[in-house]
């Protein structure tokens, strides 16, 4: 049932996946075919081309995609802006390079392996070099070349799932979202669709290859027709409607996927056409916003404060939000529309019954009890400035400290292996596991208000900002926890879209 629901969300990712793959293959062929001819006629060129293509192939696809982001940023700066560093372009370039090697290698091998007698005969009967190319070399090498193109197509379809990481929609969207939210139905749906696409492409190209081999035009036309039909459907599905297109960004955890859908659904209802760029890293996503590659996303006050503004003082919440808003406006033109109404901060949590029994409700209460308690944290908390700030305000000395990955941290608290954990305040497991969040009366942990941020390009767009304003202060922490839990829980998992639906119709 979950799986059927997940499959129903695959339409857009499949269409986007097909289009980026086909575009990359066409560009890859446009690069590879001339190089193939040149290489077949010149030994030195062949060495260089095959060497370079081999080198590209040794770079993991993920790294290749990631490398194009700074490269395009740099290029864009060089020509005075205007080159998008995220989305279609970097994905297209990286995947095209990936498609070059199998085509080039098969083409060169094929041309070198042609029967020298046929080539001598071609010269002997007086063919010009072009006649020889079109009437002898191309028809003879095409079956070998097609095998290379098939390989390239299958590789590209697989690697294209990674283009999600540079903000190009693909079947990687459900896979990455599912992986981050441990929604295996979503992962499986994405993987199955990618595999089916690869098999279909291999089958259709195989049909064309066979048609060429046995000289049956029918098969070739059938294969070409199938490709044209698939492309037409994908293009129709992706057709930018007359409606204005908005790009919504999301980082790589459940809450971000859900909030992106909340924003997206709202904008769609108001007549916008929405695209998602999900799974972006913290450092990339803010740059993407300032570069207008995405139009809107949700970030957290403390993250901007420490990561982007490099501040380590902790002013009161209201002053902090004002300072952040002013800084973004001045430094890049990004607009802070407003807080969503909840925080996702580091917060100390205990089992509810345990906290009651020991009479602990705040960090102040914790100071005295700490020496007999064990702290569990996530992998980075103990090294973060927030922990130093907490220790500065409250002299906490725990009996022991241990680090866990988030899921295991909650399990450790539940099982009694630790007594206090560094939780995330909007995490759904706080309510589900009956945990008590300890108050921070001295305000040692900076505010992590969820903030709605809009790109410089959209910051003066009244209709757009007006469409987002009703979201200000509309989601309290208990609602966000519940939505997060729908996605994070082990049983009856919801997709981020379903959780967003829940938040909107609450």
């Amino acid at each position: 049932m979950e799986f059927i629901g997940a499959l129903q969300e695959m339409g857009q990712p499949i269409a986007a996946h097909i289009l980026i793959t086909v575009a990359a293959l066409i560009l890859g062929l446009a690069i590879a075919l001339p190089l193939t001819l040149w290489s077949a006629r010149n030994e030195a060129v062949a060495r260089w081309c095959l060497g370079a293509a081999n080198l590209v192939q040794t770079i993991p696809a993920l790294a290749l995609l990631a490398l194009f982001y700074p490269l395009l940023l740099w290029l864009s700066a060089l020509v005075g802006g205007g080159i998008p560093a995220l989305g279609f372009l970097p994905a297209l370039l990286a995947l095209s390079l990936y498609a070059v090697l199998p085509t080039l290698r098969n083409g060169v091998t094929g041309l070198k392996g042609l029967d020298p007698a046929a080539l001598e005969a071609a010269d002997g009967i007086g063919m010009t070099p072009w006649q020889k190319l079109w009437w002898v070399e191309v028809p003879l090498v095409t079956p070998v070349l097609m095998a290379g193109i098939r390989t390239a197509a299958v590789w590209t379809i697989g690697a294209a799932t990674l283009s999600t990481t540079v903000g190009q929609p693909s079947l990687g969207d459900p896979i990455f979202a599912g992986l981050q939210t441990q929604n295996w139905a979503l992962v499986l749906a994405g993987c199955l669709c990618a595999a089916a696409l690869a098999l279909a492409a291999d089958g259709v190209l195989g049909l064309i290859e066979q048609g060429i081999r046995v000289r049956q035009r029918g098969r070739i036309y059938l294969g070409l027709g199938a490709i044209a039909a698939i492309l037409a459907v994908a293009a129709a599905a992706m057709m930018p409607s007359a409606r204005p297109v908005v790009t919504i960004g999301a980082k790589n955890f459940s809450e971000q996927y859900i909030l992106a859908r909340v924003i997206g659904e709202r904008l769609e209802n108001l007549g916008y056409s929405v695209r998602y760029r999900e799974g972006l890293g913290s450092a990339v996503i803010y740059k993407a916003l300032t570069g207008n590659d995405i139009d809107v996303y949700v970030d957290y006050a403390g993250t901007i404060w420490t990561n982007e503004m490099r501040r380590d003082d902790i002013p009161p919440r209201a002053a902090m939000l004002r300072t952040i808003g002013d800084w973004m406006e001045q430094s890049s033109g990004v607009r802070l529309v407003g807080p969503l109404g909840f925080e996702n901060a580091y917060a100390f949590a205990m089992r509810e019954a345990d906290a009651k029994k020991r009479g602990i409700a705040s960090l102040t209460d914790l100071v005295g009890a700490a020496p007999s308690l064990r702290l569990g944290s996530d992998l980075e908390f103990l090294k973060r400035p927030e922990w130093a700030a907490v220790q500065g305000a409250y002299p906490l000395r725990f009996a022991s400290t241990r680090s866990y990955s988030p899921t295991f941290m909650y399990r450790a608290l539940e099982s009694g292996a630790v007594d206090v954990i560094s939780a995330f305040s909007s995490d759904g497991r706080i309510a589900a596991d009956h945990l008590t969040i300890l108050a921070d009366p001295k305000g040692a942990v900076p505010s992590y208000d969820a903030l709605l941020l809009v790109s410089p390009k959209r910051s003066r767009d009244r209709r757009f900002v007006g469409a987002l304003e009703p979201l200000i202060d509309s989601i309290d922490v208990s609602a966000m926890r519940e939505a997060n839990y729908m996605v994070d829980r082990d049983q009856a998992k919801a997709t981020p879209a379903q959780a967003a639906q829940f938040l909107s119709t609450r």
Partner: protein
Amino acid sequence: MSTATTAPAIRFVEVTRRFGAVSAVNSVSLDVSAGSFVALVGPSGSGKSTLLKMINRLEDPDSGSIDLNGLPVTAEPPPQLRRKIGYVFQNIGLFPHLSVGENIRMGLKVAGETLSAERLQEMLQLVDLAPDIALRMPDALSGGQRQRVGVARALAPAPQILLMDEPFGALDPVTRDALGREVRAIHDRLGLTTIMVTHDMAEALLLADRVLVMEQGAIVGDASPADLLAGKGGAVADALVAIPRDQARRLAELGS
């Protein structure tokens, strides 16, 4: 036959072709008169193939010149030159993706012309192939059939000169003998000027009007088959002629 008096169809003037330090062809001068059937005989590496291929410019000389009917071969681009010269070689080189008919037509197609269905049948008849073979693919033919198609393809554009590089080298003895006679008959019927490279002196003696013997890039013997058999071809030629003659004698002794 009237082969005697016309101007030379092919003239070599001090032609040299080197591969690295080795002279494959070393300052060869030679006239071939129109209508003659010349066999070029010699051991492997004697330069006979290189000499042949310089006529249709599959090789170019390092020095010297080659004229066809009084015009240098370099007067026009190689493809134009080659369309006027039939070329048949040991490995045949039929285009494997084209039918027999398409292979034969290709010789005219390169010049933007077409071969009529009638002419195609004539060509097949000329090389003693059945009409229905035109639709077959090359890989469905025997070796002898393939070389017949190779000859038909070379002759389809009606060239005046036919160059053959070990044309029957890969064929079985029966086919080899039959096809040799047929090619000689075609040569006479069409009035061709033919140069055939072969390492088989018996074949040369039986088919050609004139036998040239090559060794180490030079022509060391030049005589008619009758003169060669009479011992007037020089030492190298005598040694080559001695082999089939000796074989014939031993065969005769076996039978007696």
